Structures are given as C-alpha cells and as structure tokens.
C-alpha cells in the first residue's frame, strides 16, 4: 500500500483497504498504550481516509505549506484515528503509533498542535474546533488564500453551546470556504438509555434524538449535505461539492451518518466501546476480522 500517494494516482487508491488498515492500527495502538478511544475513531475512519487520501490538498512532507487545506478534528478524543490515517498518509512513520499516549510522545491522547506538525489545532475539550476553523477560514479570505477548511465534529459534540456560536458567526461572515463534517455515529460516551420499545442506531439513545440538526443548521444559513459516512465515493463527492461552494456565502455542513465502532462485529453500535481497550482476545478477533482483509490488499 502506498503511504504517500501522488495526486495522479489518487483515483486508484483503495480507500476501503486503507480504512481497514487504519482501523487495525487504532485497535493495536489503543491496546498497546492501554488507553484511548475506539468507537469514535472507527466511526470516523472512512471520513478521515477519504479526506487525507482524496480530498485534502496537502503535502505531508511540507506541513507549513501556506496553501494547504486545513483539517481540524474537533472531536479530539478520536485522535488515534487521525494519527493512524496521518501515519498511513506519510506524515510520520507507522511505528510511531506505538508511542501513542506515552510521555514525550507527539501523539498525545488529544491532538496537540505544539507537538505534532500537521495538526492545525489543539482539541479535546469539545465544541471548540469549529471556532478555530472559522478563524482560519476568515483569515484565509482576508489573506486571499484559496484553501478550504474542514472541521470534523461529533454528533454528541453539537450539544456544546459554543458550537452554535461558531455556526452563527460562520454564517454571518459568509464563509463558503468552511465545511463542518459531523460524524453522526448515534452514540455518545454514556448518554440516555433507550426507552422501552424505542429504536436507536446503537444501544443507547441517539445524541440528536428529537433534534433536527439539518433544520437547525439550515435555519442558521448553512447549506447541508447528508451522506453515508462509510461510503468513500459519497464522502469524496460531498467534500468536492462543499469545496465548489467556496465562492458562495454559505458554509457547508456534511452530516455523515455513521456507525459507532464501525468495522468490528463486537464494537459496532455499542456505547461502552467509546473508550474501552481491547483485551488480548478481542485484539486477536479484530486482527481476524480486519487483518485478513487488509493483507489481501498488500
């Protein structure tokens, strides 16, 4: 598998195979460090892979390239998912993932832009990444820079009030060069239990149950696209559509429906995998489910 694909071979990249490999690295890294998150990184994996391998205009070996697209992982607790994809994309050696969460590592539990080149913001306290994205998109317009800014949030994260301050201000300034991608995985760390007979996309109540995120964002003046967050081509198409709107005065929100813990039979839709560490048996099972598929691509 190429780790630093050139744009001209981008279309030939097997995004699904890379995502399987990414998921495997997430499980392994968290098991190795003994701490970390699983559910969110796995739900976001297809989005992250599509972004880093097809959508973002980036130079992994030139992280301060002024024209680079900016990506901010506002749901910072999914850091290991981002690190796995950045490693696969060539930002740093895959072996460095073994340092995740350990002292002196560049790969902190939550993304630390002061340690790892390529991170555009430090995140972890939820709700804050979109504001930084607003500042970058606004600054880009003032500087006459044509890059696009993408910010990924969790659906549970939109419960943070600050998100809506940023949503409002982005619309006020007409930031067509800003796109928020919401990883709607339907679960948060603990949340609310399902009522008897109530259906959900996981084993707890959806963070947005009763909330019409699309309507809310549209009411603030955003353009909203809804996609399957596990369909690579659909993700790429939506992001391209969002970028094409950069000349307009409406920021874009991509609501990506995903499954928390996606890719492993025993983590999908299970809230307790938000921040669980795989046991040795579970890690072996994960290798079985993901590894075999990954190896056929190599």
């Amino acid at each position: 598998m190429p780790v630093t694909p050139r744009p001209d071979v981008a279309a030939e990249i097997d995004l699904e195979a890379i995502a399987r490999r990414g998921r495997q690295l997430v499980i392994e890294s968290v098991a190795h460090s003994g701490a970390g998150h699983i559910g969110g990184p796995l739900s976001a994996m297809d989005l992250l892979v599509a972004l880093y391998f097809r959508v973002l205009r980036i130079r992994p070996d030139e992280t301060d390239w002024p024209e680079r697209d900016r990506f901010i992982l506002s749901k910072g607790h999914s850091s290991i998912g981002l690190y796995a994809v950045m490693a696969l994309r060539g930002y740093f050696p895959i072996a460095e993932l073994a340092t995740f969460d350990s002292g002196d590592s560049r790969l902190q539990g939550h993304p630390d832009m002061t340690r790892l080149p390529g991170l555009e913001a430090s995140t972890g306290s939820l709700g804050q990444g979109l504001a930084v994205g607003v500042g970058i998109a606004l600054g880009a317009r003032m500087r006459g820079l044509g890059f696009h800014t993408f910010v990924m949030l969790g659906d549970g994260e939109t419960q943070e009030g600050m998100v809506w301050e940023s949503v409002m201000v982005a619309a006020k300034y007409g930031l067509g060069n800003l796109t928020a991608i919401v990883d709607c995985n339907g679960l948060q760390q603990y949340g609310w239990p399902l009522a008897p007979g109530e259906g959900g996309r996981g084993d707890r109540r959806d963070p947005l149950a009763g909330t019409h995120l699309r309507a809310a964002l549209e009411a603030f003046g955003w353009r909203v696209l809804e996609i399957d967050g596990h369909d690579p081509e659909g993700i790429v198409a939506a992001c391209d559509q969002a970028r094409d709107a950069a000349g307009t005065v409406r920021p874009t929100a991509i609501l990506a429906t995903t499954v928390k813990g996606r890719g492993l039979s025993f983590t999908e839709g299970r809230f307790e995998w938000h921040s669980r560490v795989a046991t040795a048996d579970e890690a072996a099972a994960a290798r079985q489910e993901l590894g075999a598929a990954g190896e056929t691509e190599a």
Partner: protein
Amino acid sequence: MRDAWAETLIDLAGDNPDLLVLDADLGTSTRADRFAVAHPERFLQMGIAEQNMVGVAAGLATLGYVPWLSSFAVFLTHRAADQVRMLVAQTHANVKIGAAYSGLLTGFTGKTHQDVEDLAIMRAMPGMTVIAPGDATECSAAVRWATATSGPVYLRLARDAGPDLFDDSYRFEPGRVIRLREGSEVLIVSTGTQSARSLAAAEILGSQGISAGVVHVPCLKPVDAEAIAAAARGVRLVVTAEEHTILGGLGGLVAEILGEHEPRRLVRIGISDAWGESASNAFLLERHGLSPERVAERVALELARVDGIAGEAG
C-alpha cells in the same frame, strides 16, 4: 486607560497590517468602537459569543494575524476560561486579551461583572503573560510591547481614568517591578490602578511619621521575584494591595515569593474572599479597604501589631 488601549491600537495598526481587533459586542464600552472607525477592515464583530471569539482569534493567529480581544474581563477569564486555556495558553497562540472593566470599579454593574479573580486565574495558566498597568501611559506601553511580542498576553484594563504614575519616557519590560516611593519601615507592594491609591496611602503614612515604600508590579507573570524579595528586606512589614481577591493574585504571588525567598510577616489587602456589589467607586474602595485612607489606616494598625509582637518577644 481604555482610551489609551484603543488609541494605541489605532496607532499601531497604521504600521502593522496584521493587527486585528475582535469584539464581543462591547466595543462602545471597551472603546474598540474607535478602532472600528479608524480601521473598519480590521475590526471583526463577533457578537455576544466570547467563547467562539477566542477560538476565532486562535485560528486567525495561525495565519500570522495579531488579534486583540475586546470584552469585559469577566467574560474572557470566566465564561471563556476553557477556550483561553486550551486554544490560547496551551498552544501559545499569539492572541492578546484586552480585558476591560476589570476589578471592582466597573460602573455600577455589580458582582456579576466585577472580575476580582482574573489575575489568579490567568496567572495559573502556563505561558500566559499577565499585565495589570498602573496608568494610561503604562497601558499604552504594554499594548505596544504585547503587539510586538509573540505569545499570549492578558492585559487587565481599568474602566475609569486614574492618576498618572509615569511620563512618556516609560518603557514596558516584562517582569520588571517599579519602585514608586522609598520607605524604610513598611513596604506596600501594589498592582494595576491600585498602585496610585497605594502611593497616596504612603503619603498619608509619611505625614504620620511612618516611612512607607511602594513597589508597583505591572506584570504578575513573568515577575522579577528577586526584586520583590530584595525590596522586602529591611522593612518591618510587607503589605500587598490590589483591586482583586487576596487569593492567588498579587497577594498570593508575594506570599509565594516571600515564603520561598524572604520569610516574614505579610498582610494582604484586597477583596477578602467576598463578592462585590453595584455601588459607587468611593463606596467600593471604602468597603474593601482600598481607598488611600483605609490602606494607610490598615498599614499603621498592622505595623503597630508587628511592633507589639516584636516588643513582647524582646
């Protein structure tokens, strides 16, 4: 002081195209409205949304801009504390926090708006430079220094104009402590606009035959701890005075320094673990013992107490 803040930024923006002012809808109070008139393209109204404003500033700073925030201190250090912490202090972002209406004297707004914990909060954040100017001249110099220096800066601004302490030759140096008055018996360590009142208190004490020195600490972080310890040597009593809680601000700072370098009796004058209220400036200064008369009274009392203890011991 707020006038000096705005006028200095207007002046600096002429030569510095990266300087921006972000306002959380209080520009008519903070005087950011004057900047908006002078440099409309570099004034960004962020609405009544301080948390987002801090994040936007952090984002702008990554593109080389130098954003100054305009709001009341309380909304920056309390409501947006988490944003200042993670997005500005932890990333060492080049964001400047213009914290207007700090302290007790906030124009009849009451305890909701009186930020008397800001210095303690901001001083606890690694990497944050914390400045509390004593007058308009020092404020202007601090704004110039902060704009030209990379990294996060918290600038504590007073609403009301006070007496001048410094002339135009003043230059701001981070960490420097400034001797305002010599005195052999007691040392008053003071910060912000309280320093003018502390100086007046020392004059009152002088008229009573008590020799009181005054040291002004315009920068609580970094700070020249050795200079404060040295100033404390030889006097019988050290007193801190601040328009701030006695917990964790200047009083806390001096207690830490003396405890480590120059152990001795210390009296902290300030808001004594209490909330403020809406009232006239005169009322508030009296109530919290910060008027020149009340500071002088307290210093004389505490000095007599120290001498009494020394007498008993002798």
